[in-house]
């Protein structure tokens, strides 16, 4: 038999098929990008040791009620003012220059009624059980922002870079340069402004 040349496959519908697949993948794709506020919970302490007493002036008490209203150190406050007030409190450095707790890197008002030293200052957040999660996250976010602001300022002064930027780069593995050295520097900043956020058990009812 005579050899017939094979008829050419019609490729005109190729685009349609590809479109179909494309639309399927477009619809099922979820570009996942999970970001969030990291936190470490305190381990359960079974020992009977009395917790050390914290001076009242070293405490910044944030209460959130079930209507999402804030009460900070016994006075009502709007969420917008929280960050600034937290920064003022942490950065106060009220200890006298003669005392061992003197804070030489603080730039606050040095009021004697506010915190002695950032390493002594504790922020305590107390929620009602009916507080909305949205408000809870907003409060946490503002308080973390206050810490980040101070840490950035300190790392700018000491090393000339932002604490949060370098931390992000190290976490992502894109940090160029001496990583362990940078880690040590991050630790030093964290020592100067330790994150002391305490969360008390929320009130029942």
């Amino acid at each position, binding site marked *: 038999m005579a050899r017939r040349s094979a008829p050419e496959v019609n490729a005109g519908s190729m685009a349609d098929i590809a479109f179909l697949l494309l639309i399927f993948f477009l619809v099922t794709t*979820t570009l996942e990008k999970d970001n969030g506020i990291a936190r470490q*919970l305190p381990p359960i302490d079974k020992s009977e040791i009395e917790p050390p007493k914290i001076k009242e002036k070293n405490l910044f008490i944030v209460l959130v009620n079930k209507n999402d209203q804030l009460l900070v150190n016994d006075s009502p406050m709007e969420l917008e003012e929280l960050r600034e007030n937290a920064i003022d409190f942490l950065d106060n450095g009220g200890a006298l220059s003669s005392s061992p707790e003197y804070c030489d890197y603080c730039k606050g008002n040095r009021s004697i009624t506010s915190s002695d030293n950032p390493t002594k200052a504790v922020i305590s957040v107390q929620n009602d059980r009916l507080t909305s999660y949205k408000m809870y996250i907003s409060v946490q976010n503002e308080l973390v922002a206050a810490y980040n602001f101070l840490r950035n300022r300190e790392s700018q002064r000491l090393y000339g870079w932002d604490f949060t930027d370098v931390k992000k780069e190290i976490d992502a593995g894109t940090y160029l340069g001496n990583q362990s050295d940078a880690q040590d520097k991050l630790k030093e900043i964290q020592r100067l402004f330790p994150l002391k956020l305490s969360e008390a058990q929320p009130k029942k009812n």
Partner: protein
Amino acid sequence: MSKFTKKKSNELPPVSTASLPDIVFMLLFFFMVVTVMRDTELKVEQNLPKANQIEKLKKDRSVFIFAGKPSMQYKKNFGDEGRIQIGDKFTDVSNIGLALTEARGKLNPELQSKVVVALKVDDDTNTGLVTDIKEKLRELNMVKIIYITTSGDPLEQ
């Protein structure tokens, strides 16, 4: 003269669509590569709250807890209260331990001790539920947690 006028009367040639399949295939391959099939079906509503002081989640060492109101089709059976979902099923606060240990078992053995619990909680939930979860996590000694949020300014909401 007629030589020139003839040329002008020519219409524009149609755009060639021969390379269209190639372009579409390129897009197709891109989406095929980036697609991650969801391994869990969400049974609760998930409108995450906004925050801007955020860190990236390390996926390889995290287990997820979802919480929120049951979504539409589960409302009839599970009610309107905030619920916890781990893996594919609704879980009670008292059962979190078991479900989490199971989820942790699926991680890379070297990373199991560094496990981070990612809390994906609907912004309409009561904090009480989150507190219960956190209490349980403390008992289980899984103290590293991360509240998953979307990026944005919380002051605007």
